[in-house]
């Protein structure tokens, strides 16, 4: 089910798209094709995901955090990313889905359960974008002591990812034996206490959810904030392709995706006009990411160039309702025609689509080599 393609046989570039809210610009809702009171509806959540799947994207990401996104007058509501991801998983069939889940304050045990469950409901299409809750208000919302400085936040991310990964391995794939002869449903030798002890907390295990279909979910994050050894995909930033290439070269992760913000020309307005229109209301914060404001053709050329340096790109569209349509009608078809990108195959895990091995279970070291792949 999760047979591995060799990396060379896959497409040159994987395309992810961030689909939170109405787009990357804080005032994006003002150019949306729907009224604000339609944003938080199942119809909208499913529709946007369906458009991305039909367009041929490899992966959807869904931004999140305990604090509401944006400030007045653009303070919008946001449904939790894991809940949206699970809903999307049940209404799509091939696209990967990675919610953003910070573990600065969250319980790693709950996060591990939720993400493992997402992998089950999506039949192995789940990922996890690890971020941080940076603002002190997040501590007040959670009712926990503030994790104040950058080093402490990185520690919480490191430990949270480590705990989740250990819990995902705490059930071996074949822990459910259903041995009628001995009346045993489980083989307890194939269940493992993780006995994690970090600087600020400890977790016993095992998980309450069986091992995810992918073994381990695909974990994405910034390599300067999460140890590279704990990531499958580094999300790197740079203002131009050269800076992206430099960051990618030192990421040290199995796969590297570049963060690219896009505003595209539409039949009605140029990209510059669209940005200018929204900038009247609020500024589009500069995060040090490559930003493309222009035509679909130019974006195709840029992505072609990036494909020499990175394995994938995560696009952050200015306004989802406008830019996703252009991506779907012009950009992905052009890239597909050049065989730079390919849509995920039905029945394929996100890991397989990305050409990543299904990891052996850390607790099943005694199993003969190769057995893992046979399961």
């Amino acid at each position, binding site marked *: 089910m999760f047979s591995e393609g060799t990396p060379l046989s896959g497409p040159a570039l994987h395309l992810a798209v961030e689909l939170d809210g109405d787009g990357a610009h804080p005032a994006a809702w003002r150019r949306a094709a729907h009224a604000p009171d339609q944003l938080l509806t199942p119809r909208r959540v499913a529709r946007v995901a369906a458009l991305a799947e039909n367009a041929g994207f490899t992966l959807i990401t869904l931004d999140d955090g305990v604090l509401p996104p944006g400030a007045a007058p653009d303070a919008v509501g946001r449904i939790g990313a894991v*809940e949206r991801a699970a*809903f999307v998983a049940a209404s799509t069939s091939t696209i990967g889905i990675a919610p953003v889940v910070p573990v600065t304050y969250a319980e790693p045990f709950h996060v591990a359960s939720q993400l493992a469950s997402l992998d089950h409901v999506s039949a192995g299409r789940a990922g996890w974008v690890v971020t941080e809750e940076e603002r002190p208000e997040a501590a007040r*919302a959670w009712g926990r002591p503030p994790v104040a400085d950058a080093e402490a936040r990185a520690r919480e991310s490191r430990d949270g990812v480590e705990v989740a990964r250990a819990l995902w391995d705490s059930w071996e794939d074949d822990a*459910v034996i259903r041995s009628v002869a001995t009346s045993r449903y489980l083989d307890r030798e194939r*269940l493992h206490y993780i006995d994690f002890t970090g600087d600020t907390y400890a977790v016993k295990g095992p998980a309450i959810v069986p091992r995810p279909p992918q073994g381990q979910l695909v974990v994405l994050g910034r390599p300067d904030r999460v140890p590279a050894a704990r990531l499958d995909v580094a999300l790197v930033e740079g203002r131009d392709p050269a800076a992206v290439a430099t960051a990618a070269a030192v990421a040290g992760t199995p796969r590297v995706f570049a963060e690219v913000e896009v505003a595209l020309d539409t039949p009605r307005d140029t990209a510059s006009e669209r940005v200018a229109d929204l900038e009247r209301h609020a500024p589009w914060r500069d995060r040090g990411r490559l930003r493309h404001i222009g035509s679909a053709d130019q974006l195709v050329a840029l992505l072609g160039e990036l494909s020499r340096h990175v394995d994938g790109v995560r696009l952050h569209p200015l306004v989802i309702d406008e830019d996703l349509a252009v991506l779907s009608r012009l950009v992905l078809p052009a890239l597909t025609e050049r065989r730079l990108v390919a849509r995920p195959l039905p029945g394929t895990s996100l890991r397989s689509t990305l050409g990543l091995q299904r990891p052996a279970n850390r607790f099943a070291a005694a199993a003969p080599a190769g057995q893992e792949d046979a399961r």
Partner: protein
Amino acid sequence: MTRTDPLDVPRPHARLHFGVFFQGVNHWTIWSAPDSGAQIDPASFRRVAQTAERGLFDAFFLGEGLRLREVDGKIHDLDVAGRPDAITQLAALAAVTRRIGLVSTSNSTFNEPADLARRLSGLDLLSEGRAGWNVVTTDNAWTGANFRRGGYLDHADRYRRAEEFLTVARALWDGWQEGAVAGSVGAPAWSAPGAVHRVRHKGPQFDVDLAPTLPRSAQGHPVIFQAGDSGEGRDFAARNADVIFSAHGTDFDDALAFADDIRRRLRTVGRPDDDLRILPGTEIIIGATEEEAQEKKRWIRLQQVTPATALGIAGLLWNIDLSDRDADGPLPKEDPVVAENDGSFGARRIADPRAVVAEWRAKAEAHGWSLRETVIALGPQRGHVGTPSGLADKFAHFVRHGAIDGFNVTPYLIPDGLDDIVDLLVPELQERGVYRTEYTGTTLRENLGLRAPLTHRSAPDRRQAG
């Protein structure tokens, strides 16, 4: 059985509400039969939820346990185990169902309101008003070993924390005024200025200050379920719950006594005594004839109580490892070992093991039962067995006399265990006028026939809303 004259009963127009409890952990779910499906496969959840929806059930219900069960410090290996996070699974089901309620059991001890209240709101919005929360509490350090704060809560504080949790959650759910979100992209702001209220709460359990992230759902708040049976638990339910998932639904007199007790407690706190629904957990075993149903029950019990499970259950009672004994032989000769903490968690505790063992001995001797037969005969009997028409008559009697409002059905087989109930029993109930013939509402609250959330009511009913 003669049918009751519907006009000569306390509640002539009462209707049953059914929920289905996909258990996922315990020995009542048969895993050894050839048609036992996967406990974690999303298709199993979809199949059960869609069958329940075909049968016009009110709710699909998931449990939760935050640590794998252990006996004598070893992971319990005899029963089905390994289930998904409830809210995540239910959010997926929201996409493939349309009317059935989606109820998550979630712990108020090892969660924080900002996170859990928001997750429940998200489920409520994605399902357009079909979310429910079964509030459960924990105190022990054994479960706490999986969490940042560890086992920090005194036993007496469990319900205090749950109640304070609900207070904060309700404030978050009420944080956005009705119609707060703009109805047009031309509006000056995404949400109306002043229409979103920060929640500042400082109490013994929670000290938080946050802006709620989500507007109200179609049903106002998720529907609150509660299952605690102690006096404390019942009072908590009377003050807070919309639905009680009770353990009193097998014997009519017991069910009626429980329902009367709850109605008394409701009146005491100033709520109307029809303000919550009582749905006992139950197994329903159906046969074409009474004999066939009894035969099916015998088969089911033997599948549920395997020799090893019988020894495990008896071992908990005796507090002795009996795993090397013969389940088909006589009861152990020893007296039970009475200890404060027997090292077993997540299983039912037995209040007075000596008395129970004495009763078991007496009955086993009188009937000539083996240990396994004794465990089967004297274990919890929370089920109804019969023909579709016999069961329909019985349930009509229960509901029309105010003993129950329906059942939370626990299927013994996944994923097909509801089929008989939906295909055979539901039509009989409909014929007697005690079961809906179509969904009357779109939200869980509407389908259960519940009033507005407690904090949304006008002055006379608001006394307990705080």
